[in-house]
């Protein structure tokens, strides 16, 4: 396999790397960039634990090849921690005790950030739709949806 040189932005920082074609973006971020917020949950796009923002849109990093990140802007929860909207969401998540084990949290936070960026006044059904690809086994989703709803503009 030929390796490919890629250049992309990761949480605002310019990254140059050399990757094999069969490296997933998820494995690349976790094992080569030390970025641990995207989690390995199902490796087939079902659970959403590996969610990252790619050019502002949530993607399943397990279903993206690292080589495809070339020229893109990737933001993970580590990077979103500096985003004002994400911070507002996090405050509400904290107030609502929205997460239990916390494993799905990074993915949910990015999905919610994408939603409220595109649709600041999102309603409850839109919120459920937006996070329905992020599986959470602990909370029953209610406190998560409540927190996002509280953050959304009325």
């Amino acid at each position, binding site marked *: 396999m030929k390796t490919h040189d890629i250049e992309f932005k990761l949480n605002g920082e310019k990254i140059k790397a050399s990757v094999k074609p069969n490296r997933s973006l998820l494995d690349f971020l976790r094992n080569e960039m030390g970025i641990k917020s995207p989690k390995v949950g199902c490796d087939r796009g079902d659970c959403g634990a590996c969610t990252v923002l790619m050019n502002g849109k949530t993607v399943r990093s397990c279903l993206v090849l690292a080589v495809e990140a*070339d020229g893109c802007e990737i933001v993970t929860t580590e990077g979103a921690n500096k985003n004002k909207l994400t911070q507002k969401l996090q405050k509400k998540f904290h107030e609502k005790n929205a997460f239990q084990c916390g494993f799905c949290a990074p993915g949910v936070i990015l999905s919610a950030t994408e939603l409220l960026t595109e649709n600041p006044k999102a309603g409850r059904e839109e919120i459920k739709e937006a996070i329905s*690809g992020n599986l959470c086994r602990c909370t029953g989703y209610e406190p998560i949806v409540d927190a996002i709803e509280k953050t959304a503009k009325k």
Partner: protein
Amino acid sequence: MPITAEFEYEKVKTWRDALALKSAKGSAAKILAGGTDLIVLLRENHSSAQMLIDLKGLPGISGISFKNGVLTIGANVTFSDLIKSQTVKKYFPALWEASQTVASVGVRNRATVAGNICSAVPCADSAGPLLVYDAEINLLSENESRKVPIEKWFTGPKKTAMEPKEILHSIELKYPSSKTACAYLKLSRYEGEDLAQASFTVTLDCDKNYKIAFGSLAPTPRRAYKTEKFLKGKKINEETLNEACKILETEISPISDLRSSKEYRIHMAKVMLKRALEKAVSRYYKGIPHYGEGMIE
């Protein structure tokens, strides 16, 4: 879990390069657009691809255009693009509805309509709308371009009319000449992301021409031509619906699998046909329920 399959990757910049490469490699090269199906197959060692040709650098196939009543969907257009398109919502609402039932946002942001019909599983969500809108698929190869009507596209489970040397360029849909209404219904195990246990897409126009397509009820997504023929010119009422259901039953050939038993599929096919038609009729005359409401059965 790492991907252990080994393959080369080419992000082509021109159609000439893309087609030459595809022509040289044939079925050993797989097209990579959204990758939401392909990467899973590679990781689980179900694909023998030796090369991935990434189309995302190619010009002219990342947008949706609507000219002279023809909607053109480029091979890189994602389901999220379709959902955000006011044109699709206004003129091809069944496709707009179906797109919203595809997986979830993070998948729809990558998954393409082209990929959906190239994977060609019997439950492909976009197949029904494309069938009722009589879509045509533009294929390119090194020496020619051709159009394949959607009804000839699906040749078997996970099989299409596309040749190994060809690349899907775009999908065209003609806007119906008269006023129509439509409905898309998907039967799934729950409200969240699921593969359809069955699906129905129906349209009707002012002359009471009905178009009906179903998914997950036969080896490929299909039109229910006999049922359509029976319904042509008829008003939708209990009697015609009951008769239509009887005919529909002869057109479907569902199997039992993990997602549903054959018996439930047959039962629900009839329920869904009725509901889809009633919904389309109500939309035609009353404008309600709005598009996007109640798509999951």
